[in-house]
């Protein structure tokens, strides 16, 4: 049902209906943001990646061939963009281009303000940053986005066996780190 709905929206958009694209953005921007947020642990970075992915969707939607689900395709773009963002950030940090203090100030003012579990959320995000990117990606997709291994495999292009192993290691480390904090 979802697949058919997406297909209709994409076709309408390709026929020039901009409202169809707006509907797609309303439907997927949250998912894009939360994937990026889980990977980056920073509201502003996630915001930037989300905007970038939506612009890419607008430009590249004509290349979507309906062979897979639209959300799988969108997740693939989001995953690639997020990993690229992490790489770029590491390079910037290496050459001391990024201002860590500024990043800290920025990350304080994000959408989690006034939320009752603010500290716990912050702790989960900090713990997520301590595990390798590959493991983090599987963990985020499996737990927060509720995707199964087959879907994650389609998005990341990795084998189900490898993903299971990564998930197991991620789960172990995260549990350890969360208990440590407690």
């Amino acid at each position: 049902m979802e697949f058919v709905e997406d297909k209709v929206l994409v076709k309408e958009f390709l026929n020039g209906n901009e409202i169809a694209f707006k509907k797609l953005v309303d439907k997927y921007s949250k998912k894009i943001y939360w994937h990026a947020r889980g990977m980056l642990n920073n509201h502003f970075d996630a915001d930037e990646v989300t905007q970038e992915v939506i612009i890419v969707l607008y430009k590249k939607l004509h290349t979507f061939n309906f062979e897979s689900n639209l959300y799988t395709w969108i997740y693939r773009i989001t995953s690639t963009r997020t990993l690229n963002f992490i790489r770029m950030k590491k390079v910037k940090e290496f050459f001391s281009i990024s201002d860590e203090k500024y990043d800290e100030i920025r990350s304080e003012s994000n959408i989690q303000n006034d939320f009752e579990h603010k500290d716990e959320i912050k702790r989960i995000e900090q713990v997520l940053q301590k595990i390798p990117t590959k493991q983090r990606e599987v963990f985020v997709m499996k737990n927060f986005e509720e995707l199964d291994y087959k879907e994650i495999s389609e998005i990341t292009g990795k084998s189900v066996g490898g993903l299971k192993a990564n998930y197991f290691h991620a789960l172990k480390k995260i549990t350890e780190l969360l208990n440590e904090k407690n």
Partner: protein
Amino acid sequence: MKKISEISEIEFLEKEISQKIEIYKNFQNSDANRTYFNLLNANVLNRLEDKKRPIYQVNPAFGYAFVFLISFLVSYQFIDFSNKVTLSNSDFLFSESSTWLEEEEFLSSVLDENIELDYVNYLNNEIDYSSSRFINYELNQLSDADFDEIYNNIKDKKIF
């Protein structure tokens, strides 16, 4: 056996952190963030609208005129109007095609040379030449009788 224990461990670990995962998921699905996402979507769509808007196009004629004006102003800076310019080339040493630079180079090399002329010798030669020409001319004007008389006088050492 190992796989079964791994699966049961995964289940155990998942159960252990399930509460935390649930908190994070509630945070993700919170209505409090709806305003942010509405703003985010509106912002991106505005950015896309801005990108679609064609850049203000200038009439090509104005473009060419502008380029001409700029190039004229730039070239104007290289012309030194304080220098006198002779249009006809009076100096045979230089052709019309010779540049100011070549001419200037040549002239400065000439000025730099230390020319020493032997004026005494030069003047003597000139006097000798003109006087000999003068005598020859006078002699040519004489009639044969006068010439013979002078010749005889010289011979008799009456003259000099």
